[in-house]
């Protein structure tokens, strides 16, 4: 009750400087009380209590979600992938779908959580995943050969307690079609039973009503660097991520997802080229080049 009340209060008065350093707690409390409806004023007793409950609310939120380190996705989902739900990420080629999956895996493994990737497309490049920040020791990679195996493997890893399971169905045509909706419902139930975040990355909608959250990634726009006549460099891509379904929320919200290739900034100026040396192997993020 108290947490809901505070949320409503903050939404109602976004301009109030709650954390202003020069504001005395008692003054802040007085101002806050003044903003509250008459019935709710008695619930706020002290600034310390308010602060503690706000902190508790933040911690509860962070425990209920798993941050993905993709800012657009985290913003769209109020903090990250919700635990205990099936999140379906739909996107065509070059929509940033696989980057999102890897970022979520990297975020989870980098903080010490175990994660599993059920990779139907056999798309993972371990070198690239490591470069993205994934702790490969904590990542379980499963390479099924059809959708049936994929669903069975995902259910097994969910049942063994993995807090994050990412299922990537690869590029169309998906081997095994869409699968039975009952199988996706079983998977969603397994995620709920074990409080795990289940991210399903797919080229088209597959999970039907089993998905608690559906996100659509539109085809990304490539960002090229360089001047006319010179060699162009792919510096990244940007795609729009749209919320199509989430229980308790209206669909339609969207965020722009900007993905840089390696260390080349998306909107920054082109880096000064390093002088080429004989047989110098350069590894820039995901691209390997040999300069002469």
């Amino acid at each position: 009750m108290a947490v809901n009340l505070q949320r409503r209060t903050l939404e109602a008065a976004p301009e109030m400087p709650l954390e202003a350093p020069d504001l005395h707690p008692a003054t802040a409390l007085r101002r806050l009380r003044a903003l509250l409806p008459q019935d709710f004023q008695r619930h706020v007793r002290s600034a310390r209590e308010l602060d503690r409950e706000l902190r508790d609310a933040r911690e509860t939120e962070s425990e209920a979600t798993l941050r993905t380190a993709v800012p657009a996705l985290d913003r769209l989902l109020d903090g990250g992938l919700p635990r205990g739900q099936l999140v379906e990420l739909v996107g065509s080629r070059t929509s940033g779908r696989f980057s999102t999956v890897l970022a979520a895996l990297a975020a989870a493994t980098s903080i010490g959580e175990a994660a599993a990737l059920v990779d139907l497309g056999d798309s993972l490049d371990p070198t690239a995943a490591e470069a993205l920040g994934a702790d490969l020791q904590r990542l379980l990679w499963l390479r099924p050969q059809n959708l049936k195996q994929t669903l069975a493997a995902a259910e097994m890893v969910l049942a063994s307690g993995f807090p994050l399971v990412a299922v990537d169905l690869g590029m169309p045509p998906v081997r095994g079609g869409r699968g039975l909706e009952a199988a996706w419902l079983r998977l969603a139930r397994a995620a709920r039973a074990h409080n795990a975040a289940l991210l399903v990355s797919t080229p088209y909608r597959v999970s039907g009503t089993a998905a608690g959250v559906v996100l659509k990634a539109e085809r990304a726009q490539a960002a090229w660097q360089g001047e006319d006549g010179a060699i162009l460099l792919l510096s990244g891509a940007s795609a729009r991520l749209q919320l199509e379904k989430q229980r308790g929320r209206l669909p339609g919200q969207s965020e722009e997802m900007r993905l840089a290739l390696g260390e080349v900034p998306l909107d920054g100026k082109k880096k000064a080229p390093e002088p080429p040396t004989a047989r110098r192997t350069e590894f820039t993020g995901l691209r390997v080049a040999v300069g002469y």
Partner: protein
Amino acid sequence: MPGPRIACIVLPLFPLAARLRSEPELVREAVVVTEGNGNAARVVAGTRLAREAGVRPGHTLPQARALCPKLVARPRDEECERAAQEALLEVAEAFSPRVEDAGDGVAYVDIEGLELHFKSDSPELELGRSLVAAADKAGLPVRVGIASSKLAARVAAGLPDSPVIVPEGEEAAFLAPLPLARLAPEVEITSTLEQWGVRSIGDFARLPKERVASRLGRTGRELHATARGMDSRPLIPRELPPVFHEGTNLEWPLVSLEPFLFVGRAALERLCERLESAGLACQRLGVELRLEPDGHQTRTIDLPAPTRDVKTLLTLVRLNLEETQPGAPVAGFTFLAWPDHPREAQLSLYGPAALSPDKLATTLARLFALLGPDRVGSPRPVDGHRPERFSLVEYTPPPPPEVRREPRAGRGLLAVRVLRPPLGLEVISDDRQPVEVRTLVQDESEKRPRVEGRIKVASGPWGLEEGWWTEEPTGRDYWDVELTGGIYRIYRDRGTGEWFADGIYD
């Protein structure tokens, strides 16, 4: 100084008990275990129903069948007996580390100091009951005797109303009223003594030892000493076996998989129960098959992590047999489990939750069975630059950090979806760069993505060289190309001039 205290565990009618352990559904039937072939086979032991029908050890099988028409006969099975003996020793080892294997359903346990674990008025009696209960749980109806010498304990274990406790120093008094046959039923001297009118152990003990020695020799002297309660044989503890066995010889050879798995499941269940009682799990599973008429096959299945999940092990056995069929009817089998300690984890109060090692091991083994050994593991980069290469290692995640922390702020990096194996392309290019690509005609059943269209932007070439010092060097010219359908990474093989797509920026 008090002497040692020894418990003797005896499995009466050992060949029968071992057989019934493998086939528990026969417990309430009239069953006999026979030795020999055909009509010459003689009864070794029988269940109560068979004995009540008049069947006795030594009867031929036709004689026994004449007495009991519904008699179920089973031949002696070395595999069953070996497994039952091991199971008996493991039950004993759950109580004491010092256990002697006396063979044929007999084990001696050094129980010195164990009475401290039992707080009742008669701790040894309670210990004996615990031994009986533990063995019963393992499918072994045993009798237990506790005394200060192996001989007295063995004799006590042979008596009804188990467990029988012989107080320290009262061995001679305990033995005295018992018939001489209980002392050493296998020794011929006992019949000689009976002819002399010596009926009980006490009668024998009262004879002058010098006279006994002069008339019956060394064996007689030793027997006389044991009759007086003196047994100087020490307990010789066995060493733990490196492998656990469980198996059986089949009544008739099996030619299909399902019946084999049905029988095999029971054996695996017994094996896993034994592993569990020892606090171990199976790291490697061996399957020995005895084939008709005289073949023999051994297979070994390596597991990704120690497990004792019967369903998983059975699935692995099924997959192994489906992959390589025995090629002949199976007349018997033995499962061998190379044990290892299950994984353990220290849980943290404040950090992220660790995976349960037991559950993880079972899941890995099941995934192993579902997907195959080269499709489950932790990915590792391979030294080199070709992006399609990788290696998989055993998944053993390190313990999670002690304190939960937040992930780093996202950098938002674009990743490449690797096309494994690379997709063959037909590329039209002008003098400088490729201008149009098309997937080479492929088998429709392969279900691989298609890459087609006019190139809007091309960036390259980016050279890749690897293994130039080898006979088959890799040389590639990479291009990043943007088509209407996406951004691709394509390359031209310098050796063959062929074009491939090996990744999609996604």
